[in-house]
């Protein structure tokens, strides 16, 4: 284990939330560490290409513009220690343990902000463990960050409208999308829009981006289907097709897009109080009006407090930064309130839009039906039939984990927990708190945890 580094503030995550918090905290002479396992800041929405690449016309869409401005401001800040390629493996009040290329570092900080973002909801369906089947966000990150098209005929399937955007980006990059399949009927999506007309209006640019995506796909002749449910993904050594309720589709890559869940390993390990994050599942940090979690000295912002999009993440990040300045006595309550007015208003607006998206994208009734031998826990190869048996015997998620190894593997249950909790929820009311989060949030070499020999 390497040296101890001290900072006034440690921010976990260099996405919009972490950037906005750093910007809000700048100018006070604080020492701030921003820790991210990606080499460059940007977060999931602005996954930057490597510094070695030069990419013309990178993320030119209108909705990316304000985020790129924020990123530029962040990158121009002085007094920030950017700890890229560092994965946070543990957090306790006042300290963060991070694993980087040189080993493990312990960082002490008076205030910690968890802005670790979200991840794609992993949705099991027969054949989903075949090479070539990806979380849709992963396909998009290859596009944005590596300038790579994962296949020559990509099928996108799920319930989340983001898959339209991803499909359009693939087409714009010269790729082919076999189809975009929404499992829900079109009426479910339109219904959500008409139920929240105000929120929809206020976020017209985002909806226009969707409309733009639809136009791009129409020009390319890409089918966008509703009520189209995948039943199985097929192939021998890699995916070569999908069986759906609307026939078979040939493809050499699949992106599953049923929504996003907060990255909750770090706050749960720190003992922060959590709440169910939304219809896609997962856990969000409970926070007060200043983004403080239940653990003193630990705040949370961005998708860590619920999946509401990049603009909401940035607003929440600003608010958290202002609150930390307040808690450190750098500004007084009046100044904090004044500064918080704008981000608070923005947060409210964006959350209203997020509620609309949640309703439109709600996967609850549209998940594929796994077969008995469909693997639910990818790391430990635990199949659906095994879990069905355990769930019907009435065990909690922790008891089932203990009994079957579901959630005990390399990913620490990040992928399978929502699936298992859905199965448990189907057996009746009651709320299962999910797996107990364990150290380390990312696996770490034992050599790195020890002083050199």
């Amino acid at each position, binding site marked *: 284990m390497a040296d101890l580094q001290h900072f006034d503030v440690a921010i976990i995550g260099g996405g919009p939330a972490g950037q906005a918090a750093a910007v809000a905290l700048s100018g006070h002479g604080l020492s701030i560490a921003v820790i991210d396992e990606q080499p460059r800041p940007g977060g999931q929405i602005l996954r930057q290409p490597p510094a070695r690449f030069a990419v013309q016309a990178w993320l030119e869409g209108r909705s990316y513009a304000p985020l790129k401005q924020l990123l530029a401001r962040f990158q121009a800040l002085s007094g920030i220690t950017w700890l890229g390629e560092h994965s946070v493996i543990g957090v306790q009040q006042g300290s963060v343990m991070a694993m980087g290329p040189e080993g493990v570092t312990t960082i002490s900080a008076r205030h910690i902000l968890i802005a670790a973002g979200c991840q794609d909801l992993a949705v099991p369906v027969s054949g989903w463990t075949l090479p070539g089947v990806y979380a849709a966000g992963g396909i998009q990150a290859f596009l944005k960050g590596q300038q790579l098209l994962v296949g020559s005929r990509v099928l996108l399937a799920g319930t989340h409208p983001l898959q339209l955007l991803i499909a359009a980006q693939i087409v714009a990059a010269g790729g082919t999308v076999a189809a975009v399949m929404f499992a829900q009927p079109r009426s479910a999506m339109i219904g959500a829009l008409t139920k929240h007309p105000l929120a929809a209006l206020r976020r017209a640019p985002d909806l226009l981006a969707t409309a733009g995506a639809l136009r791009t796909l129409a020009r390319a002749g890409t089918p966008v289907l509703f009520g189209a449910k995948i039943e199985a993904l097929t192939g021998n050594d890699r995916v070569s097709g999908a069986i759906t309720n609307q026939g078979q589709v040939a493809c050499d890559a699949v992106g599953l897009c049923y929504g996003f869940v907060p990255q909750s390993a770090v706050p749960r390990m720190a003992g922060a109080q959590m709440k169910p994050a939304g219809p896609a599942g997962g856990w969000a940090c409970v926070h007060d009006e200043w983004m403080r979690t239940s653990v003193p000295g630990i705040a949370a912002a961005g998708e860590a407090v619920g999946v509401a999009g990049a603009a909401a993440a940035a607003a929440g990040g600003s608010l958290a930064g202002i609150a930390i300045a307040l808690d450190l006595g750098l500004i007084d309550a009046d100044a904090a309130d004044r500064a918080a007015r704008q981000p608070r208003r923005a947060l409210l607006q964006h959350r209203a839009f997020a509620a609309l998206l949640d309703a439109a994208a709600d996967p609850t009734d549209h998940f594929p039906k796994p077969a008995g031998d469909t693997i639910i826990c990818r790391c430990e190869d635990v199949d659906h039939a095994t879990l069905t048996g355990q769930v019907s015997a*009435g065990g909690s998620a922790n008891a089932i984990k203990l009994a079957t190894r579901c959630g005990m593997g*390399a990913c620490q249950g990040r992928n399978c927990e929502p699936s298992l909790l859905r199965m448990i929820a189907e057996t009746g009311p009651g709320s299962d708190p999910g797996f107990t989060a*364990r150290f380390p949030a990312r696996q770490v*070499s034992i050599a790195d945890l020890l002083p050199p020999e």
Partner: protein
Amino acid sequence: MERADVAIIGGGLVGCAAAWQLARKGASVVLIEAGDINAGASGQNAGSLHFQIERRFLENGDDLAEQGAQIVALSRHAVTDWATIEGDLAADLHVAMDGGLMVAETAEQVALLERKAARESHEGLAVRTLDGEQARTIAPYLSPGILAANFSADEGHADPRAVTPALADAARREGASVRTATRVRTIERDAGRFRVEGEGLALSADQLLVAAGAWSTEICALVNIHMPLYPVALLMNATERTAPMVPHLVQHVGRRLSLKQTHAGNLLIGGGWPSRLAQTPNGGFDLSARAQMIPESLTGNLLAARDVVPGVTQLNLIRSWTGVTAISSDQLPIVGPVPRVPGLWVAAGGSAFTLGLTFARMLADAMTGGDADELALLSPARFEHLNGFMG
């Protein structure tokens, strides 16, 4: 009101094994567990089957070492109990008894090993003392820094995830009633019987067995009895899976270390390193809140592992967790009848993964009219002085 011959509180290894043994003898048994079966120490422990005298008995002087030696007699029974349990339950519990090594790195520790081996052979436990070379011949994964080791051929490990649920299933098959998600709230003594109540539970039993691990003190308090058991929070670590590398149980005579490889291939590293128990707002320990990892425990544990099995440094740590178990004021388990309250039995404290099957079998004998002579050493009677004003 529901009636039973025996009520058992606690669905860990001890409670479930006792339920099975008592039900087999024809007793009507109700087992009551606050959470899930195996939710306590029994599902969180290291799964070591250690029959050599434990390091904790050796580090505090000769008197304690002498007591530790007396447990060896029980360990000999445990060897048989573990060798037969998979057949008895018709279940795969991943019991592996391929031998265990207790290693030494310094001359002082070597001397400790030798004294320990002498005590053990006096108690009839076969232990061989090997020098470093001999140890590395049977265990090539050991560091060149190992100077000597005691080898016990019967030691090994079993899968804590599998054992207790299998015992609970066996108990059910023998007719025991197993109630999970039922926390015992009150216990009344009523005309020589015990009235045990909790959510959805009202039970009257002739005898009551407290097998609630670290929570046993609270349960005994419900019957107005002091039981000097103290909760301890212990750290465990698991590596990623790797090819077969360590067939034995590995322990250290002078440092806190237990290391083994599970059937799935993960190395489990523990040995009694503390985590910090959560506290209640008004002082005291809060066993329902999660304990905090102590970074020094993590490094201390992994350092000991590296010094004994250098190959571990090549592996990734995938999970660390804390389990809460109970230790008694004199380190020995407390198992047997409580003199002041006829019909009340306790089984808690100590290394009751290794010894739990044996405790349960002997208790079941004693509770159905047999004698408890072999458990005399562990009898709650030794704390009778604490209960002079209780009962």
